[in-house]
């Protein structure tokens, strides 16, 4: 098979690095742990995509330089570690100093000198760099005290932010590959499947299909037909607003690989692929390195841990097509074809990649597997709700104060996630809706905030779990515009194979375009509902079948907003540019000039400390003035 990874990912070292048995895995873990314990201080610098964009690399490099220059290494025995995403991306770059757990946010290279002098050499905490808890309204010194972290229960994200994803030994020292060792040395393949069954683990990619059942069906089908089988990982995280899988691939790639090897052992597969999204370059680099290192260590490839079991995995890069997250389209894409789904009369567990029985699970699902084997299926099943066990990672984004990754037990309420962990809405504005499940999901209003989050309750309310994107919206978000946005997304991403999706979603989108432009007509809403019904019934794959969800769920909960667009020709949220004007309130304006400075087209005039005015002809309705006004003086009028 064609298998030539990029040059930087090719193996250099020889076999002397191989771990030949379960026993030597344990002694390596102990050895690395002893080495790490010698360090009295460990500085963790987040090197995830978000923090890197804000200059984390410069911070890490200048920390390393300062430490060498001042010979602190010998004195204090400290080490700098570049970790994966801590999940608190908005505050990046993040620096955590262990073992005290001092948490600095928004650190720049220029702050390094002060950190070294005051915190490392002295014992002083730099107040300026601390995080301020918006709920308790006070500064917090350590990682453990921040509600964003302390309320979480991390299983899939267990190592992220703690280990260096480029160091396989660091993963091993944190208990990595122990699950694999247990499975290979003490469990039969059927017992592994039983254990996953007992844990109740359901696929985290959106569908929520029980993983154990999927594995067993695949194994049985392959045994019966005496065929080879494949174990794949779906890292084509296409839902906009979701980045859990990106963070796992970047920050803890070995957890995914270990999970896959355990799965392959259970199913009896000898090879597989990780299908990674084209938009995630760092994930590809970190996964490729992890695969090379795991092969060198004998944890992937031939005769894993001296057990006689062999399984190898390759990376397949996506081509930037959302539909390739769908299982049958993904498998076509891996095989080098155009990623169009097929009708699934026969499921891919029976006829999948190259028409052979195939198990496909997503990144987060695989990352849970090693934990279940080491900690026990019952420990996993004890978390969450009866039908949705364990935890789920969400990316909490949008108009919420603490944006980032959160992993919480299933069954927690939306209110807890958004207001306690997320700290509430930016600027303490009114909450309007939360969107879950990506383009196939829906929007839930304030009345549903006390809903317990799990697979089945979300679906029953017209939304879905999806892969875990959670986008919070305030009163300045137009729900019609949100529905239009998702439809446009799906129009672009529909593969075009079946008519209801290709043509139907397009017409649905055009109807919403009209409504947002003030050309909505009486009867449009009924037309939308009828058309949606056809699309849901007649589309070939889940992309089409769920495409009307965003518009149906917003219609269900925010029908008045649609009516205001159609009948009143007004967008109350101030988003649809043809349907409103901005006006500065006489009562509220203080004449601070902030809006005039922010306006990109200079259409705001006024003297200091006097009422400002917007010249409506020039105004582009970009909303920059509204964003900067601290007195809520920029109002939306007809």
């Amino acid at each position, binding site marked *: 098979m*064609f298998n030539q990874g990029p040059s930087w990912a090719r193996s250099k070292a020889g076999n002397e690095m191989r771990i030949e048995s379960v026993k030597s895995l344990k002694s390596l873990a102990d050895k690395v742990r002893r080495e790490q314990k010698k360090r009295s201080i460990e500085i963790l610098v987040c090197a995830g995509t*978000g923090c890197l964009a804000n200059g984390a690399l410069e911070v890490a490099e200048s920390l390393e330089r300062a430490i060498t220059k001042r010979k602190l290494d010998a004195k204090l025995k400290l080490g700098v570690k570049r970790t994966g995403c801590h999940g608190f991306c908005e505050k990046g770059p993040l620096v955590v100093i262990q073992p005290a757990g001092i948490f600095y946010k928004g650190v720049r290279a220029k702050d390094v000198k002060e950190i070294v002098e005051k915190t490392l050499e002295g014992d002083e905490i730099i107040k300026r760099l601390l995080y301020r808890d918006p709920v308790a309204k006070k500064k917090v010194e350590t990682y453990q005290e921040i509600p964003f972290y302390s309320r979480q229960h991390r299983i899939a994200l267990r190592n992220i932010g703690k280990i260096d994803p480029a160091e396989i030994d660091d993963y091993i020292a944190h208990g990595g590959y122990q699950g694999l060792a247990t499975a290979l040395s003490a469990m039969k393949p059927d017992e592994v499947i039983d254990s996953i069954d007992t844990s109740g683990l359901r696929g985290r990619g959106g569908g929520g299909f029980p993983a154990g059942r999927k594995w067993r069906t695949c194994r049985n089908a392959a045994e019966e037909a005496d065929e080879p089988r494949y174990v794949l990982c779906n890292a084509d995280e296409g839902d906009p*607003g979701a*980045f859990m899988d990106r963070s796992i691939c970047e920050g803890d790639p070995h957890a995914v690989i270990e999970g896959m090897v355990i799965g392959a052992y259970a199913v009896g597969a000898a090879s597989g692929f990780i299908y990674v999204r084209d938009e995630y*370059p760092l994930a590809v680099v970190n996964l490729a390195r992890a695969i090379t290192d795991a092969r060198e260590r004998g944890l992937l490839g031939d005769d894993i841990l001296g057990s006689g079991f062999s399984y190898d995995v390759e990376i397949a890069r996506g*081509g930037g097509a959302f539909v390739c997250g769908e299982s049958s389209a993904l498998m076509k894409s891996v095989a080098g074809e155009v990623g169009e789904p097929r009708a699934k009369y026969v499921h891919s567990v029976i006829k999948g990649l190259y028409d052979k029985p195939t198990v496909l699970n997503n990144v987060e699902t695989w990352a849970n597997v090693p934990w279940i084997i080491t900690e026990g299926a019952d420990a996993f099943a004890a978390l969450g709700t009866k039908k949705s066990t364990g935890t789920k990672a969400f990316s909490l*984004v949008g108009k919420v104060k603490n944006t980032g990754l959160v992993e919480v037990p299933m069954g927690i309420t939306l209110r807890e996630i958004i207001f306690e962990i997320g700290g509430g809405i930016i600027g303490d504005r009114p909450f309007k809706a939360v969107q879950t499940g990506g383009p196939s999901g829906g929007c839930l209003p304030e009345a549903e905030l006390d809903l317990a989050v799990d697979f089945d309750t979300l679906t029953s309310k017209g939304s879905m779990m999806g892969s875990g994107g959670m986008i919070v919206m305030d009163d300045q978000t137009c729900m019609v515009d949100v529905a239009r946005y998702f439809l446009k997304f799906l129009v672009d991403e529909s593969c075009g194979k079946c008519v209801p999706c290709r043509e139907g979603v397009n017409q649905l989108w055009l109807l919403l375009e009209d409504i947002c432009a003030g050309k909505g007509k009486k009867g449009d809403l009924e037309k939308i509902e009828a058309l949606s019904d056809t699309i849901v019934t007649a589309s070939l794959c889940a992309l089409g079948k769920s495409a009307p969800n965003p518009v149906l769920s917003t219609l269900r909960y925010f029908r008045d907003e649609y009516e205001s667009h159609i009948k009143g020709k007004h967008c109350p949220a101030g988003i649809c540019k043809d349907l409103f004007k901005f006006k500065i309130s006489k009562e509220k304006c203080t004449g601070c000039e902030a809006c005039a400075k922010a306006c990109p087209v200079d259409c705001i005039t006024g003297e200091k400390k006097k009422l400002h005015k917007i010249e409506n002809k020039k105004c582009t309705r*970009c909303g920059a003035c509204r964003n900067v006004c601290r007195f809520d003086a920029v109002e939306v009028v007809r």
Partner: protein
Amino acid sequence: MSKTKDAGRVSEKTGRKLDEKKIKALLERFPEGDPRCLIHALQDIQATFGYIPCEVVIRLCDRIGVPMSKAFSAATFYKAFSLDPKGDLIIRVCTGTACHIRGAQTLVDEVSGSLKVKPGATTKDLKFTLETVNCVGACAMAPVVSLNGKYHGNVQPGTLVGKIKGGK
């Protein structure tokens, strides 16, 4: 080969010729008669040239045994591939949900208006390409714009055009 339409267009506009050595080295990486490596090969061609020159695809088809119709079907299906040369600066405005509700569309309109290109197109002088992307997974810094692969977070309306024209 420099006489072909493609090679001529590139050398004229970007000052870069399609390097025969580069093409050969690239094609040799793929096993003869193995159609399964099509997508991977297209990715490497895209990465090498910044776009997918038709001539290279034709030669790839010969080598790996894929009908041209299938290769071009794949090259036009996936968003990551482009049959047209890209500008020196590729501006990718993230229009994921989080970026959308924090004003990504305004950014697209601003750049589009200022450079007079539609999203997905390249300016005539091959200096700028404006693209939208469905989510780069950096939602916490929304709205995000990537300039030649470097991410810029929390981009405010009115500041992007200056950044682009300043060549940063």
